């Protein structure tokens, strides 16, 4: 009888299978990237700090009470209308801009062209210039955090919309794309200038007042 030798199983392609699995896991594993609304706190004022006097018309007051209701400039408002109200306030441009390093920035020369047709015209009783416009958010200690963050988000959206409009008008490119292209090309001076220009045209000035009890 012929003795048959036990044939060896070819295990060569086993490695391919294992590699395939390994690569599949390597590619599909995504580390949960945390995202959020970023904010910069103001520095702690020194003990003898005297807050500057700001004209009433340059402050946009937003109050949130403990029932999560909004009071904007002394009137009740729905959260959906907040963005439009904030845009109208920031982009009012009813006077002279602030003096930066001894150089007055003058009246807002882009406010009118950025304004949409259905938005109210500039008035004497609202903010002077986007760089003077301050949004103050005051909330109650018992306000829900969700509402608070929605308000912050709406206000930030107002700013990004204005920045976006100005960017499209001046440079024919939406602001997020402009920022994106600057991020991928950090050494490009002209891009940097454009981003800075838009940012200083509409600086985000949102202050958090001490909550009421």
């Amino acid at each position, binding site marked *: 009888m012929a003795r048959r030798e036990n044939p060896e199983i070819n295990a060569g392609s086993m490695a391919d299978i294992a590699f395939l699995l*390994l690569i599949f896991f390597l590619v599909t594993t995504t580390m949960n990237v945390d*995202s959020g609304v970023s904010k910069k706190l*103001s520095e702690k004022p020194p003990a003898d700090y005297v807050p500057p006097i700001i004209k009433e018309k340059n402050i946009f007051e937003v109050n949130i009470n403990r029932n999560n209701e909004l009071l904007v400039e002394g009137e009740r408002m729905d959260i959906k209308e907040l963005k439009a109200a904030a845009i109208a306030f920031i982009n009012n441009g009813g006077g002279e801009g602030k003096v930066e390093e001894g150089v007055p920035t003058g009246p807002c020369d882009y406010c009118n062209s950025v304004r949409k047709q259905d938005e109210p015209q500039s008035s004497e009783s609202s903010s002077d210039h986007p760089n003077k416009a301050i949004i103050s958010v005051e909330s109650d200690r018992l306000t829900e955090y969700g509402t608070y963050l929605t308000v912050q988000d709406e206000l930030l959206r107002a700013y990004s919309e204005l920045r976006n409009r100005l960017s499209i008008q001046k440079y024919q490119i939406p602001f997020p794309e402009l920022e994106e292209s600057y991020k991928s090309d950090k050494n490009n001076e002209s891009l940097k200038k454009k981003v800075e220009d838009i940012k200083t045209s509409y600086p985000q000035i949102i202050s958090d007042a001490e909550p009421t009890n």
Partner: protein
Amino acid sequence: MSKFRKKKKGMPAVNTAALPDIVFMLLFFFMVTTTMRETDLKIENPRLPSASEVKKLEHKSLVSTIYVGKAKDLKYGSGFNRIQLNDKIATSDQVPAFIINARSKVSEAEVPFMTTSIKADKESSVGTITDIRLKLRDVNALKISYSASKASEAN
């Protein structure tokens, strides 16, 4: 002379039978060591509010996270205002120590880029967040990020 005749053979095949073992070992190593979350949550997973103006947090090593929400352990009550630092339920008074501890782990040049991420539940109250914020300001940790899930762009 037949005994010393050179055997006519090609290159012997390299035995690759052990290769799958090596690769599987790698696979298992990665599967076991990959942890999705580095801290145990002592509070219930916060239901994050949603926002559209969110930015991604880069440089994970420079982010310290503070959780706010409802404690899993009922002895801390059922309010949504418990603060978790590292692995423990804490109070806002412990926030400065937490930040200073986090700072000691990174090089001095990177300290200004450190961000504090606040992961708070929708129903927590602003008062708690304000307490944390005041403590953060005391230790000059000024960059914060309110963790939120990305909402689709409405209107």
